[in-house]
């Protein structure tokens, strides 16, 4: 298993945001996570990427325990993540944004990094704005940059946080196609998304979280048909 989360628990005072979570992802697998707001989805990402430390439980990645490893160490181990609200380095160019990840996150030399980042920009359709300041990009471009930057660290697993949100249907379809391409390169994907049809176009398996607990897991279509999942998602697109 590439990622093994076992008995993971996180609470802020009396509020439990991750409650005895178990989750595994195999290499090259794509797993989706859905759940209402406040279900603990982003917290789970923060626990995996190292922004937060768990109250209990452990996370193993690629055979080693991540406990105590700072975010930069987890990046170098092969975990890339994107934010729901894109957070590019606004005063750096798009290309420089990627170089940071390639040089510091992947320990590439400058020449290797330039080569690799050029290819990633091309793959994500960002070559035309390579030298623009990241702060000047549109939302779709920012979302693409967010993903490109995660890929620049040559991850084995990318954590995508609501990357399809806020896009038009056309933009969303393009983005889904790109994520599909990334999948084909063998990168494992863990994807939080409210836009369920986008998610279903890519993932192999679906996990449903509610109040920090995993309430369902399995083949996407089957999971969505379970009454308890359906109940949570009444009123939400499915």
């Amino acid at each position, binding site marked *: 298993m590439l990622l093994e989360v076992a008995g993971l628990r996180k609470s802020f005072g009396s509020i439990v945001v991750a409650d005895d979570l178990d989750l595994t992802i195999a290499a090259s697998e794509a797993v989706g996570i859905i759940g209402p707001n406040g279900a603990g989805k982003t917290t789970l990402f923060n626990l995996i990427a190292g*922004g937060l430390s768990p109250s209990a439980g452990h996370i193993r990645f690629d055979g080693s325990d991540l406990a105590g490893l700072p975010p930069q160490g987890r990046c170098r181990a092969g975990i890339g993540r994107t934010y729901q609200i894109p957070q590019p*380095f606004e005063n*750096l160019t798009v290309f420089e944004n990627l170089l940071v990840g390639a040089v510091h996150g992947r320990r590439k030399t400058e020449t290797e990094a330039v080569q690799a980042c050029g290819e990633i920009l091309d793959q994500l359709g960002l070559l035309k704005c390579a030298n623009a300041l990241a702060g000047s990009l549109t939302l779709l471009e920012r979302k693409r940059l967010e993903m490109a930057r995660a890929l620049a660290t040559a991850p084995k697993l990318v954590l995508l946080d609501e990357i399809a949100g806020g896009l038009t249907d056309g933009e969303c379809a393009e983005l889904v196609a790109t994520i599909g391409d990334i999948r084909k390169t063998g990168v494992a994907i863990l994807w939080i998304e409210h836009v369920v049809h986008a998610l279903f176009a890519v993932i192999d398996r679906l996990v449903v979280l509610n109040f920090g607990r995993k309430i369902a897991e399995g083949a996407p279509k089957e999971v969505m048909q379970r009454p308890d999942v359906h109940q949570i998602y009444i009123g939400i697109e499915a």
Partner: protein
Amino acid sequence: MTGFLDAIIQGILLGGLYALFATGLSLMFGVMRLVNLAHGDLIVLAAFAIFVVAERLGLDPFVAVLLAAPILFAIGFALQHVLLNRALGRDLLPPLLVTFGLSIIIQNGLLQMFSADSRRLRSGAIETASISLGGDIAVGVVPLLTLASAIAVIVLLNIIFYRTAIGRAFRATSDDLDVAQLMGIDVNRTFAIAMGIAFVVIAIAALYLGLRANFDPTIGPARLLYAFEAVIIGGLGSFWGTLAGGIVLGLAQTIGARIDPEWQILSGHLAFLVVLAIRPRGLFPRAVD
């Protein structure tokens, strides 16, 4: 008229010294958002370090600074890694308190070791050499070197910041600390390197401080004030702005002194006040936040 022109030329040259004082401060603030209240005292400390190396080894201060620079880089690196990184965080107060404490420690430590006697760096004939510009105007070689060094330091820093991987890390970290870590940047180490570089700039500033005038352990805070004013006048986040800020300050002081010698310091502060009133973000602000 000649007197006025002279004041302008001397003011620009003095601005070079203030720019050197300010560049280290600008770098620290730009990369780690650190307001270093010990900056002036660190410059004085470096001046004493150059003084000791020069005296003990019988070297010219220009050579001594080359020897002292790597040592100061190491001290800066260690200071940031061991002490200041622990103080930095969401709360602005701890780094202020720590650097204020550092300022007191340095002043008293220097007093203990070197007494309150004033010293200066000796570099032979170059100290008093000057170049005549025709008319009654002449410029000192040391002030000229000061300005040239300030420009060279800023050019080099811009190359580091905009052309190298570590410079990219500086800018990325300054932009978003959390995301920088997520991209594999070791923030503590990045900050420590930035502080090391700032200390080398401090060493260069100290060299010209010591060549231009006498120094003693208590003059640090006034240098800090000039450095702050230069950074703020120039606008945060731009080294060229810092140079411009230094020059504005130097000009205001020499022109003020030309009008009445008692007005020198005051007119510098007045210029600062005027810039703050008209352009609160400085002349050439770059950082968006």
